[in-house]
């Protein structure tokens, strides 16, 4: 066990990476469904919200888990990111407030239109806020001596972050559409196939653009293309992502119901690993402050050990009961939102 000690920061990076991915997928389809609902009539919107009712609380909680784990394992990282991205993070929180109460009030209110619209707008705003925050993060935050010294506005509001935000927006719409393909039928499902195709083409274009810009920006990432073991990994994962895209398009053409969502997850997984390999070990990618790396942003070894033993027990438990809940509500969603005990 002692052998694991020096690798604990990396293990936690891996755990947090897993939480981030899981969150991005499940709340991604949640938010994507919300954005798509903006273009629907009242009846359809109710059906769309009905696909989320039992699961969205759980999905959103992964964000809380992600925040808590990052705070625990990498306090410095947590502090720098959240304080420097103050504006998009606050906007995201406000959007989640709007969206969260809209879902819960929707079933109880007579003004379905108002709450349905709030649900959609909250989803859109939260998505854009996450996109801009990610853009600011990928572009690099100005950090000196463990303190953010950049602009509180321009660090996340720039042409690059606009591109990243567009990518997140299309990506979430794509996830939402694939989720609706799985959960709905007839006309709504057919329309979801079309949305899934259109949004995935846009997502692919933006992703390639973001990836190229990252390589240009970070010599550290570009260097890995020319060194022996690094080149293999940085090339392998984009290649796998591309392959998944091909399989994804095939599954849409064949009108499969579950496969598009699964290939969508594969695309996200491989892209994420690819970019992470490129950036590692600079946790806040930044040319100005190469000092904020995995190791010195981490909590003490004592804390990491304590958290690690805890996480080894709790993560499987979480996955089991989350899996069980998804199983209970499997299959097509048939009722409108808030109709208790929909039949199978």
């Amino acid at each position, binding site marked *: 066990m002692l052998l694991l000690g020096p690798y604990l920061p990396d293990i936690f990076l891996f755990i947090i990476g897993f939480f981030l991915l899981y969150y991005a997928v499940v709340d991604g389809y949640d938010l994507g469904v919300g954005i798509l609902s903006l273009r629907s009539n009242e009846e359809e919107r109710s059906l769309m919200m009905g696909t989320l009712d039992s699961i969205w609380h759980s999905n959103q909680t992964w964000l809380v888990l992600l925040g808590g784990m990052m705070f625990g394992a990498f306090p410095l990282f947590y502090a720098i990111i959240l304080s420097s991205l103050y504006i998009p993070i606050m906007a995201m929180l*406000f959007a989640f407030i709007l969206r969260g109460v809209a879902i819960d009030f929707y079933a109880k209110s007579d003004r379905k239109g108002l709450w349905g619209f709030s649900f959609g707008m909250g989803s859109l705003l939260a998505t854009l806020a996450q996109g801009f925050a990610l853009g600011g993060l990928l572009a690099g935050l100005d950090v000196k001596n463990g303190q953010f010294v950049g602009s509180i506005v321009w660090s996340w509001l720039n042409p690059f972050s606009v591109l990243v935000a567009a990518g997140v927006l299309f990506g979430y719409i794509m996830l939402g559409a694939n989720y609706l393909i799985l959960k709905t039928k007839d006309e709504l499902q057919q329309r979801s196939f079309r949305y899934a195709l259109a949004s995935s083409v846009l997502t692919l274009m933006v992703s390639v653009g973001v990836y190229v810009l990252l390589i240009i920006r970070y010599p550290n990432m570009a260097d890995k293309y020319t060194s022996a073991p690094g080149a293999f990994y940085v090339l392998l994962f984009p290649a796998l992502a591309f392959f998944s895209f091909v399989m994804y398009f095939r599954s849409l053409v064949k009108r499969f119901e579950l496969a598009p969502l699964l290939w969508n997850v594969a695309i996200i997984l491989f892209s994420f690993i690819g970019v992470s390999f490129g950036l590692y070990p600079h946790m806040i990618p930044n040319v100005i402050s190469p000092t904020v790396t995995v190791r010195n942003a981490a909590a003490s070894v004592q804390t990491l050990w304590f958290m690690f033993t*805890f996480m080894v027990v709790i993560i499987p438990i979480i996955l089991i009961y989350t899996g069980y809940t998804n199983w209970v509500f499997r299959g097509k969603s048939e009722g409108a939102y808030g109709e208790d005990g929909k039949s199978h």
Partner: protein
Amino acid sequence: MDHVFLSRLQFAFTAMFHILWPVFTIGMSLLLFFMEAMWLKTRDDRYYHHARFWTKLFMLNLAVGVVSGIPMEFQFGTNWSKFSVAGGDLFGHLLGFEAAMAFMLEATFLGIMIFGWKRVRPGMHLFSTAMVALGASMSAFWILVANSWMQTPAGGNFRDGRFVIQNNFNAIFNPDMIWGVTHMWVACLEITIFVVGGISAWYIYKKRNAEFFLRSFKIVVVVAILVTPLQIYLGDSSGRSVFHTQPTKLAAIEGHWHTNPPGTGAPWSLVAWPDKEKQDNVFDIKIPYMLSILVTHSLTGQVKGLTDFPVDEQPPVILPYYSFRIMAGIGFLLFFLMLWTCWAWRKGKLNTAEVTRQKWLLYSWMAALPLSYIALEAGWVTREVGRQPWIIYGVLRTQESASNLTASAVGTSLLVFFAIYFVLFVLFVLFARHVILQGPDFESPKS
């Protein structure tokens, strides 16, 4: 106003708003578990109807609690980044534990509890309700552990401005922890009792389903027999713990400026107007020896006064002094209300025919509902303002813990919080009113 002040204001406002909601969620989930279990055991449908009715208010409450809770976790990073770095080694992973062990459990099983009535067997549904209740209570546990560590940091030491843990057990079981956790958890039960009791009293008073609500009324009266005196005991123990571990807070709470010389007793101030400039009370009504008796259990026990500490280590005095008296006063009122109700019950006044005539008793229960929430807020003001000027008692000052933000950024977010939370509060009241006016639904459970 500088950005630190605005960040403090924002944290105080968002925390005071947030705490209104989880208390009922925590207490009600336990009560819902009890009702559902009783229904399965006795097959008496009235328990089922109670469970379904109170679930509506539970959900409404939970919705506001969840959305106002997420900003709490993130504000440590956004507004208090220096605190997050300094205390993160302990504080961060406690929040992580809360999310992983408690909140996730609650949020996931909530789906089955609310939407799964016809998808799972009754036993599984009961299990889901139990998991929601367990998650909610564990949530309170971890959050209060984190908060009590800020009051009485233990289990490690500070090196280069960062706390490094040596012993996790000592950090978690810090001196304030047992009182912080129990006092708050019992507060959740107590508030739930007076919310359910107050609403039931209203129905009884209006003669709407009086018999049905007499049942929930009696259930909470029974719980109150246990909870209201227990809370007074826990409050007293908590106060004595504060005396040992946070002397400046205790002195501020009691408006106690001058340490009693050996051989004399410290007086307890009943009403006063503390003045920090003068380092004394401008006006004071005292009970001799009482403070020594209360906190040291001896006539002449020494109680340190505020003037023993440098002015820049003294908390504000007026706020904790009065908020404490409001909280404790309400605690005793609720205890007396419980006694009165038991007396009426014993006299046979709590049956369907008689109870609607007990107007003053019912009015009192309705008034107890807002009072219990006021006690909650007053208690937290005492606890948090009394800890000042420290964010981590004796170690790190609040003034030195904020992120380097611009006042305009924090001011804007604060205004948005004001606006959104005001609207949320109004909406909650409107929806809750709608649920209450609609009343319970007596549709039979489908098996």
